[in-house]
């Protein structure tokens, strides 16, 4: 019953998403769609660990950057396709998450968050320093091969749209599967109260390590996609603190620890930012994040469950107002 009703929503939704770039021809609009899908995907990856297990990382840029750099180095120095580079970047991020997690999980709550910020910043500084193998602070442009689907390069933006749509679908499927598995329940238990979860036999360090690896892998895939999409890489964009911020922000605004929360949050925030940009132009620096932070504060103070919480509350109120059938 529930499944069929969900399918009823899902099928037309997917059809609309697939048809969208065929109908909308403006490359400005498609660019916004791509940004929405990309940040939804990053948010979904963050939400696995930050949302379900409440391990609030503000250092996911570390994995975004590692993914971007791994695939770019493999492509430029060894001629390996970014499709393979994306997987390689994901594996590199997974491996990096082991020592980083080993360090950061020694702390809890806010100090975990700080430690994750520090590790991402440290990685950025390392890539700024080592110019021999990663082009230092100037970064590099990725050679444009024209239409080369095997090298993840396409003419026109529509193909990029489908790639990132596919990534988001993978991310959502993984979340959906985890939500329904023993791991999902363990994660929520850890998020509610880590000590209590351990007391009833949840192996918290192992679960946190595993979910961190999955989250890192997905974030790295986003990094590869992004550097291929903008044909450019440097430490400041690949390890940008703003990536870490947005990953967390979209999930919290949309609804932390929910399947669709990051997607809904991204739609709201990216649309707001696109509207602000078209009204004010690029002239006023800082306005986008000012508005984001106000939205974030409002959500935290009045609706900590996010927009999904707002929607379910409104639905319940509507449902209870309806006269009960006898």
């Amino acid at each position: 019953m529930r499944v069929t009703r969900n399918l009823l929503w899902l099928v037309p939704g997917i059809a609309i998403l697939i048809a969208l770039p065929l109908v909308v021809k403006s490359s400005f609009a498609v660019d916004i769609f791509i940004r929405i899908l990309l940040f939804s995907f990053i948010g979904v990856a963050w939400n696995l660990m930050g949302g379900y297990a409440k391990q609030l990382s503000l250092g996911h840029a570390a994995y975004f950057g590692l993914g971007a750099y791994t695939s770019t180095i493999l492509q430029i120095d060894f001629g390996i396709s970014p499709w393979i580079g994306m997987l390689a970047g994901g594996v590199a991020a997974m491996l990096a998450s082991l020592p980083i997690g080993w360090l950061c999980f020694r702390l809890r709550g806010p100090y975990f968050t700080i430690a994750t910020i520090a590790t991402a910043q440290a990685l950025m500084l390392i890539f700024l320093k080592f110019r021999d193998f990663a082009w230092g602070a100037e970064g590099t442009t990725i050679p444009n091969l024209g239409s080369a689907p095997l090298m993840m390069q396409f003419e026109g933006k529509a193909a990029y749209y489908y790639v990132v749509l596919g990534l988001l679908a993978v991310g959502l499927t993984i979340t959906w599967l985890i939500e329904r598995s023993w791991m999902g329940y363990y994660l929520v238990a850890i998020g509610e109260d880590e000590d209590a979860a351990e007391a009833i036999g949840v192996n918290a360090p192992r679960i946190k390590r595993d979910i961190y690896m999955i989250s890192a892998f997905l974030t790295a895939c986003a990094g590869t996609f992004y550097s291929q999409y903008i044909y450019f890489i440097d430490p400041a964009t690949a390890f940008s603190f703003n990536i870490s911020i947005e990953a967390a922000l979209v999930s919290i605004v949309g609804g932390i620890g929910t399947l669709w929360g990051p997607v809904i949050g991204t739609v709201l925030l990216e649309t707001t930012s696109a509207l602000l940009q078209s009204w004010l132009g690029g002239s006023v620096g800082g306005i986008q994040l000012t508005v984001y932070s106000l939205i974030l504060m409002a959500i935290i103070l009045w609706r900590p469950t996010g927009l999904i919480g707002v929607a379910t509350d409104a639905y319940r109120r509507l449902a209870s107002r309806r006269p009960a059938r006898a």
Partner: protein
Amino acid sequence: MWETLAQAVINGLLIGGIYALVSIGVTLIFGVVKIVNFAQGEFVMIGMYISFFLSSQFGIDPIVSLVVSMPVLFVAGVLIQHFLIRRVLGPNDMPQIFLTFALSLLLLNLALMLFTANYRTVHTSYSDEVFHLGGLYVPVAKLIAFVVAMGLSGALWTFLHTTDLGKAMRAASQNRDVAMLMGINPNRVFCVALGIALALAGAAGSLLMPFYSAYPLVGQVFTLMAFVAVVLGGLGNVMGALVASLMMGVAESLGIQFVGADSGLIVVFAMLLLTLAFRPTGLGGGKAR
């Protein structure tokens, strides 16, 4: 060689004094209110801009403008505790982390909108003055900043140990529930803690102004420094934060001197990661939670 080393240590200690003002604020808020203030560095930034505008509009010396920046930020701290932080105090970490984080984003980007990303400097008569000590140089502006910072830290220590309110704050930091049972009004104590912490950040801003540029992002490095110092010094430990800040100033300065101009932060991060790996409860021991 020895002179270079001594010079680096002096430079590090002097800037470490400023870091101490910021970290003492963070550790005080953590100890008493049990939250981590991600916006602490942004209040340093506000202190710097207050001093900058007082100096450029009215010609007031940045060190003197301390008497404006400290009370203004004290009031800001009381208001922030009363209207914002009070509403998210509870067993759940998430809203607390993201409230102060949102505050930091907001202040930083408001500053970017209002004051632009330009670097603002104040030139005082003593900005370039140097005081010789044998073969070593001691910049006068930094020395004044260090002395005032240590004076303020000492004043705070005296306040915490001699006055009733200070004792109430220490009691709340040691065991909040028992302190409440003894009749300590939590919101009043929390408001004062926030006020003092922000006033110290404002003082740090004013003291920096004669030798440091103000720009919207300037606070971030101070927040990071303070976090590392607070972890190193043991969470909630005022004395530990002070000592750790001075150590970090020296470590940063040695990094700049012997590794390279842009490696100061790498040394600091390395210190944080090594601490987490080997002494996650801080150098002096204690409880990390």
